[in-house]
């Protein structure tokens, strides 16, 4: 029996086996890294907050009550429900100048920020991968495509996003697309450079000589080897997209003002900032903590998944 043969000597070596270094799996290494733990835990918590927003002492974030305008954090007041009845409500983070509950708006804003961040990261990575694979593998496309990417990179990203949102009607979809577009060139460059080095590997050469179709080589042989750096890059894009969305909304050129987003809450609060700084600070703290968590997670992922890049930075 073949299976028994190696087992016999292993029993004799059992004392020695304890000293043999077993390389931990990727998941084990990720779970042991402090930055992945902290960033991941914070992200998990924020996701829970976003999902559980309705049961965390909130009311509908669009509800307002003229009698409860400009309340300080912790004050109790009334709020009119959609059915028109007044209910007592504690404004944990105060209220704005329309009498809306900042606490509810901030918690529901978590949903918007997480959706925008994740969707932007996925979209930018997806389009960047297609462009990068094409540029790296199709020689005739390389030059023109990369020159266009150079052009996009020469325009400060936030200006592209602002201009695109201004042209399109502002909605969740257009904001996501507008923020993702300026992020594409960086992903493209990363994928292209990875492809250029991977395509010289013997296993790709072998696949080519076996007559494997180009598409299959691109997606089956080359793409899997770009996954780790892309996860890292995607995490950073997520952080910067959350920040950019807040900036756009804050400037008044982002999501529609009736949507509860952190940027919108701050934009509404800035008018009365001198008397009521809490309207700006509560969403600001949530925004800063979220972006920090995603960035820390990104640093951790980079250390574990992409040690070459970690050394460079």
């Amino acid at each position, binding site marked *: 029996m073949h299976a028994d043969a190696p087992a016999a000597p292993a029993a004799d070596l059992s004392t020695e086996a304890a000293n043999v270094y077993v390389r931990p799996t990727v998941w084990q290494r990720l779970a042991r890294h402090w930055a992945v733990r902290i960033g991941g835990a914070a992200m998990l918590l924020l996701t829970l907050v976003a999902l559980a927003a309705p049961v965390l002492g909130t009311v509908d974030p669009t509800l307002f009550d003229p009698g409860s305008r400009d309340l300080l954090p912790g004050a109790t007041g009334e709020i009119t429900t959609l059915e028109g009845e007044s209910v007592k409500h504690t404004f944990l983070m105060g209220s704005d100048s329309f009498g809306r509950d900042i606490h509810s708006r901030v918690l529901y804003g978590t949903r918007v920020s997480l959706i925008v961040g994740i969707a932007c990261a996925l979209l930018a990575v997806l389009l960047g991968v297609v462009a990068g694979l094409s540029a790296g593998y199709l020689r005739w496309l390389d030059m023109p495509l990369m*020159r*266009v990417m*150079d*052009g*996009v990179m*020469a*325009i*400060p*990203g*936030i*200006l*592209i996003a*602002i*201009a*695109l*949102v*201004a*042209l*399109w009607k502002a909605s969740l979809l257009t904001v996501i697309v507008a923020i993702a577009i300026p992020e594409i060139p960086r992903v493209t460059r990363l994928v292209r450079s990875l492809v250029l080095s991977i395509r010289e590997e013997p296993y790709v050469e072998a696949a080519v000589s076996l007559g494997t179709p180009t598409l299959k080589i691109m997606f089956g042989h080359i793409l899997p080897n770009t996954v780790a750096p892309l996860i890292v890059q995607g995490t950073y894009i997520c*952080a910067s997209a959350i*920040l950019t969305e*807040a*900036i756009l909304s*804050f*400037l*008044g*050129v982002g999501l529609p003002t009736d949507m509860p987003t952190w940027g919108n809450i*701050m934009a509404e609060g*800035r008018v009365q*900032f*001198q008397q009521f*700084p809490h309207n*700006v*600070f509560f969403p*600001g*703290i949530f*925004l*800063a903590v979220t*972006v*920090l968590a995603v*960035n*820390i997670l990104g*640093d951790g992922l980079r250390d574990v998944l992409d040690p070459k890049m970690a050394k*460079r*930075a």
Partner: protein
Amino acid sequence: MLSFLVKRILATVPVLLIVAVLVFLLLRLTPGDPATIIAGDAASPENVAKIRENLGLSKPLLVQFGIWFGNLMAGDLGESYFFKMKVSTLIGQRIEPTLALSFCTIVIAVLVAVPLGVIAAWKQGGWLDRALMGFSVMGFSVPVFVLGYLLIWLVSLKLALLPVQGYQRIADGFGPFIRHLILPSITLSVIYIALIARVTRAAVQDVLSEDYIRTARAKGLPEVRVLVGHALANAAVPILTVIGIGIALLIGGVVVTESVYGIPGLGRLTVDAVLARDFPTIQGVILFFSFVYVLINLLVDLSYLVFDPRIRY
């Protein structure tokens, strides 16, 4: 050497050309009629017709681009619909505050970040190193506008040390001019400090492991001269590169900072133009910012010749 200069300068031409094409296409390739988009929802048919005539929308795309690009080359960025004046004049009027703010920010950032980065690299793993790396992640995560309001609240409202908002022209006296610039510059410089300090630390760390550093120490050179004369001098190129690349971050930050502090510069102009759907102005400002960005990076490339005598093209 001369041929390098010429080549490097010529290399920016295609990038700028592509930027011009992209900025031109931004409006034309938008789904829907550009004239209607510009005129807004409440525009009269005559108004739309006039804008269509102005943009030459009835002509083929290539001809439109030819006319637009010809004007651009002659320094004509078109006429602002909202401000009722030439876009170039408008940019000229708004440039002083933005230049002053950017200049102060870069000076503060370099003066703070470079020494911090060098010391962090020197005492690698020490408390300052750890604090700096922590600060650097924070700096990337705290939104410019949250930081801005925090500083206004603390320094201007609570401590009453500096003016809350606004801008004073340098022609009206240097004292008030600087007092109005201190907070905006500090606000804007934080992310830039985070970026430069991180790269300085990494670059100096690399150099410090070189043999010539050991030699310099062995021959009894004072540590300060080892760090500044040998380590920093040899780390200059990556530091300069990141200062150049960081200009994109700076431009994005200028747009936000000017809005927070009520500074009537180009950043504020961008937001006003977007809110007024004033597309000639949006195009003009984007072109201007991109041109500055490309130009600064060209200067950075050329400065390698001065800072690194090994580079001889």
